[in-house]
């Protein structure tokens, strides 16, 4: 979260055009505001569109502006100015907080800022209003048209005589423009009348007078004598005094309390209709206007139905002062014979009235107040009688006098609503008398009746018929049906009426429960913020005047038949295969109450961080619990409304609905941390409770079956775990065996290694020995060779000697021969032979020796080979 100084920068890119060149909008993308001012001089009406090129909203609005420009470019000058380019004049002079900004000028008047929706039709409508801020009303019928509109109208009467312009006209014209500045929705319409006869219709006589038309209250004429006749003042006066029977709501999407402020005022009827401001006629809107006017028409209702008005005033002190008169009214307007709904009550002993009377006839006096629409409400509502009884018991002090033989009646207010009355007529009867009543219906016409109002006793005698059988009295539809006229003043549930354009704000309708599939974007809902409820007009009924009227009436009556609308999230699709069931408003009852299972329900919301981290626990839990007896479910309570009793103000909340005791749901205690063991304990604790209760055999049986199922499930689980354990054991054993084998192998290898080493050593030794022998032999051989050499030398010597000897012998022989020849040849021959013999034996010995030495060499060689 620390920033670094960047050393490299690049200047901003040059601006390029924002609109296409063919567009009718003049695009000053360099922010030339001065040039824009120049352009404006030539045009009566001008529209400036200030934009920033990066702005998404400007980009979105560009198309809309172009569409408007293509329709109005002949009358209006459209200029777009880039107010972001930092070299441009616009950026230097203007300081906008948002883009785009649309300014309009009517000649020199301006700027009028347009703040409405960025949609072509709305912009065009506004531009047209700026072009002609005053509507010229030429005839009587046009005037009536003008005045009958639901939006407030201001009419100025100016006689255009000889003078070019009557005094004050320009001021009035400017005030019309001025109002557009203040009231950008343009709700106040300005018209001008020039014909004196037309002006007389609204009793304007003097030229220069200004008239504000109002439907429900008296219309006003601008008080010139009190306020100065300036444009601002007229505009202010009109804004302050206008009446808003029906208002458009246009939330702009920014920070605003618009809806909150309006809804805080009280119950609101929101009507969504598709609206095109450019269209001349809006039939649906006219119809709604008619309903709204009727609804607010309090003054006229006084004239038409004085008795109703009277009832409305009956709480006022004036009533007490003219009791007799009032009573006369009662007797005329509310003949008791017309009460459609009665009940006979035998008073219990503890009741204070029981001291004087023991039977009372209690009638719902609907004619006094607002009545429900006949189409929707049964004639006699059980709830109403119930409420009447409640009120009656609370009002015991109103009967205290001891008149045993007369019938005493009392009108009293329901404590729920000031417009509902109950009439109670009480008397004492004995058994005999009671039977008499049943046989003689007219009996009650004769006794005197004590009639008291508001607890104040009026002992005026009055006879009423006994009401015992409802069938005798055909309810009078005219009386019991409620008229919408002036209803807003007669009920304390007055509605404020609002319109929303469903083209722009359909999302709100969807939030209130409009179905997404409808193509017709019409929808109506009543939102009561204080009661935190809202009601929706059935979307199958088309949105027309009568349905809307009924809707309003049904809301206004006491014990309204309208049902609180519960918004349901339609995007949820029911997936069977999911382990955690997603519950919506529609499936809530079915999943939680109708199913024959224990239900654990998690209340969560998309935004809820603490809920998201529970998901895995719930998935685990759902996998663990047997699915045929447990449902693990969750509901997104921000998108799914539930009846009040099932709502929670804290997320996440976990509720458990035990099977067969769905009404006794239990909440998971807040101070426990949500984890699997705790949840299981919680569930088991509350499921097992059921067995302690008194139980029929069947129930016990069921319970035991359930438990059996439970147990078997757990047993299966245990079995699974056991088998897993044994599998693990096996794997372990296997591993062990493998390990020991490996060890053995290792040992074996070690041993082998040892033996090999030994072998290696012996071999080493061997080779050393052999080396030694080899050396020895070598030595011997060398010696032998030496000896041989010696021998050879010796033999050579011998040979030489031999040769020498032979030579000697030969020479001797020659000498001897010569001698013998000379002296004794025989003798010499003998000696010579002896010499020869000795010589030959020497030679033989020599040869023998040589052979020996060769043999020795040969044996030497063979032994050397062997060692090698």
């Amino acid at each position: 979260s620390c920033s670094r100084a960047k050393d490299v920068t690049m200047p901003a890119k040059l601006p390029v055009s924002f609109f296409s060149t063919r567009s009718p909008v003049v695009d000053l993308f360099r922010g030339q505001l001065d040039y824009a001012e120049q352009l404006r001089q030539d045009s009566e009406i001008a529209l400036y569109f200030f934009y920033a090129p990066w702005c998404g909203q400007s980009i979105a609005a560009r198309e809309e502006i172009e569409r408007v420009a293509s329709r109005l470019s002949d009358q209006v000058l459209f200029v777009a100015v880039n107010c972001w380019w930092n070299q441009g004049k616009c950026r230097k002079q203007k300081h906008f907080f948002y883009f785009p900004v649309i300014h309009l000028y009517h000649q020199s008047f301006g700027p009028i800022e347009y703040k409405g929706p960025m949609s072509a039709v709305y912009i065009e409508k506004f531009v047209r209003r700026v072009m002609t801020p005053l509507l010229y009303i030429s005839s009587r019928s046009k005037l009536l048209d003008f005045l009958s509109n639901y939006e407030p109208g201001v009419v100025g009467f100016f006689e255009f005589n000889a003078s070019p312009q009557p005094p004050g006209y320009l001021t009035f014209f400017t005030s019309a423009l001025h109002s557009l500045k203040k009231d950008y929705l343009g709700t106040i319409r300005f018209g001008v009348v020039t014909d004196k006869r037309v002006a007389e219709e609204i009793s304007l006589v003097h030229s220069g007078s200004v008239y504000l038309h109002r439907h429900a209250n008296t219309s006003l004429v601008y008080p010139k004598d009190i306020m100065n006749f300036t444009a601002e003042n007229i505009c202010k006066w009109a804004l302050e005094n206008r009446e808003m029977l029906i208002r458009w709501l246009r939330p702009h999407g920014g920070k605003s309390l618009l809806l909150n402020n309006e809804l805080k005022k009280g119950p609101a009827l929101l009507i969504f209709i598709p609206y095109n401001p450019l269209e001349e006629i809006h039939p649906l809107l006219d119809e709604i206007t008619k309903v709204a006017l009727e609804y607010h028409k309090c003054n006229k209702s006084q004239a038409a139905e004085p008795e109703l008005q009277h009832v409305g005033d009956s709480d006022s002190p004036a009533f007490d002062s003219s009791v007799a008169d009032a009573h006369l009214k009662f007797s005329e307007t509310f003949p008791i014979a017309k009460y459609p709904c009665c009940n006979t009550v035998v008073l219990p002993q503890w009741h204070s009235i029981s001291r004087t009377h023991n039977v009372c006839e209690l009638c719902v006096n609907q004619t006094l107040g607002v009545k429900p629409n006949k189409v929707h409400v049964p004639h006699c509502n059980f709830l109403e009688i119930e409420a009447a009884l409640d009120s009656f018991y609370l009002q015991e002090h109103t009967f205290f006098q001891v008149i045993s033989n007369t019938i005493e009646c009392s009108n009293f207010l329901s404590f729920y609503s000031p417009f509902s009355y109950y009439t109670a007529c009480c008397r004492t009867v004995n058994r005999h008398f009671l039977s008499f009543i049943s046989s003689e219906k007219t009996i009650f016409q004769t006794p005197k009746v004590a009639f008291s109002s508001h607890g104040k006793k009026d002992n005026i005698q009055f006879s009423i018929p006994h009401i015992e059988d409802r069938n005798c009295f055909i309810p009078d539809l005219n009386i019991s049906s409620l008229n919408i006229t002036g209803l807003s003043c007669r009920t304390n549930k007055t509605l404020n009426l609002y319109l929303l354009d469903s083209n722009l704000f359909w999302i709100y309708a969807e939030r209130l429960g409009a179905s997404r599939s409808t193509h017709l974007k019409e929808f109506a809902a009543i939102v009561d913020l204080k009661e935190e409820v809202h009601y929706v007009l059935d979307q199958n009924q088309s949105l027309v005047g009568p349905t809307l009227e009924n809707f309003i009436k049904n809301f206004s009556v006491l014990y309204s038949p309208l049902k609180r609308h519960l918004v349901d999230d339609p995007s949820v699709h029911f997936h069977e295969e999911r382990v955690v069931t997603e519950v919506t408003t529609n499936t809530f009852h079915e999943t939680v109450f109708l199913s024959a299972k224990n239900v654990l329900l998690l209340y969560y919301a998309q935004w809820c961080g603490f809920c998201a981290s529970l998901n895995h626990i719930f998935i685990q839990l759902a996998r663990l619990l047997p699915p045929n007896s447990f449902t693990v479910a969750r509901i997104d309570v921000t998108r799914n409304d539930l009846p009040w009793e099932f709502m929670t103000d804290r997320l996440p909340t976990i509720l458990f609905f035990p099977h067969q005791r769905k009404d006794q749901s239990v909440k998971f205690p807040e101070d426990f941390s949500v984890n699997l063991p705790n949840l299981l304990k919680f569930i088991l604790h509350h499921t097992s409770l059921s067995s302690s209760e008194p139980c029929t055999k069947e129930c016990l049986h069921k319970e035991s079956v359930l438990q059996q199922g439970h147990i078997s499930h757990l047993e299966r689980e245990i079995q699974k775990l056991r088998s897993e354990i044994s599998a693990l054991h096996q794997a372990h054993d296997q591993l062990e065996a493998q390990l020991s084998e490996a060890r053995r192998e290792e040992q074996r290898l070690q041993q082998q290694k040892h033996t090999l080493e030994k072998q290696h050593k012996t071999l080493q030794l061997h080779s050393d020995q052999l080396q030694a022998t080899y050396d020895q032999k070598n030595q011997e051989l060398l010696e032998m060779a030496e000896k041989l050499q010696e021998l050879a030398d010796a033999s050579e010597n011998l040979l030489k000697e031999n040769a020498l000897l032979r030579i000697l012998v030969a020479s001797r022989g020659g000498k001897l021969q010569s001698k013998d020849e000379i002296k004794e040849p025989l003798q010499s021959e003998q000696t010579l032979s002896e010499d020869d013999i000795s010589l030959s034996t020497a030679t033989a010995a020599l040869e023998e020796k040589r052979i020996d030495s060769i043999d020795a060499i040969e044996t030497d060689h063979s032994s050397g080979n062997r060692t090698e």
Partner: protein
Amino acid sequence: GAAVQRFLGPLLCLWALCLPASSGAAARGLDVASYRERVRAMFYHAYEHYLESAFPYDELRPLTCDGQDTWGSFSLTLIDALDTLLILGNVSEFQRVVSVLQEGVDFDIDVNASVFETNIRVVGGLLSAHLLSRKAGLEVEAGWPCSGPLLRMAEEAARKLLPAFQTPTGMPYGTVNLLHGVNPGETPVTCTAGIGTFIVEFATLSHLTGDPVFEDVARKALKALWKNRSDIGLVGNHIDVITAKWVAQDAGIGAGVDSYFEYLVKGAILLQDKELMSMFLEYNKAIKNYTKFDDWYLWVQMYKGTVSMPVFQSLEAYWPGLQSLIGDVDNAMRTFLNYYTVWKQFGGLPEFYNIPQGYTVDKREGYPLRPELIESAMYLYRATRDPTLLELGRDAVESIEKISKVDCGFATV
């Protein structure tokens, strides 16, 4: 570069969420599908240029088309981009990056790293990638999620940070040398966020590895901060981790403090921890009491509660998202709409915005493409499905593309 990826994450989520609610958006003329494609293209524009020009440096410098190491030397953008790749559904690239990181990243380096940034980006990024890896279809080890290469990397990185926590108060130093521990001359002044922004990563790490040391130091630091809050229940901006004296006494929700509050809530949610939540709720009370004016949150003196700076910082924009997490959706929406007006004025959030003057503060006009406001919009859209929030998404796409896109990525403006 990295800023852009951090930024795009929430934006993608925003558009990803739009699918079911497109009918509402269509009413206002928003073409959700086309914006989704544009965001995708924006991401790849930044990501591919990072790979091309800057990898293996930490970040891309989009104007000069080169890379630089900013927070260490971890190829930080890749770590940051991991989860975004998954959101975009690019599993193959995720797998590739995981293997690149396993080979290329080394924490045994002589680098002075910010304890805070290394934790949130490196440890946090690796942990989330580790936990997401099975979903991404990556083959995981037998002991997953308690073992795995990315977890080991995260643990290694976190261990390098532990020496910083060896202080008398248990509050960590701001900077640590990954090789040698805390440098001898290191300043003991650390910003509040730099002390209280560990619990989410460190507790996750402890739970996954079984080594409690990480969660313990993180909790100890949190408790030290809690003990040193002022009498009116506020914390300042910077504190001396040796003496526990507050050095900067501005209290607010923005820069220097922001993620402390964020981690109290997110830690409470992650660990289902009531103590952390009660701490936050106490702070929340004090913050509402002293700093909140018309749904803006200002800076006040932490002891007296007097306003010291009436500014809105772009870092504060995480607050509505946080509020929505605890269910305060109404207030969140209001504050968010305040912040959105600032966006509408400038097409981005300036670092400082002077609320009374309605303009930026001198020298603090920049917008480094921070994701906080868009993240808040994403949370709020989940909570409300209000189409206004989609409009912010549209505005963010348009502005960032128009203003900050350059040839090599997206630049700070």
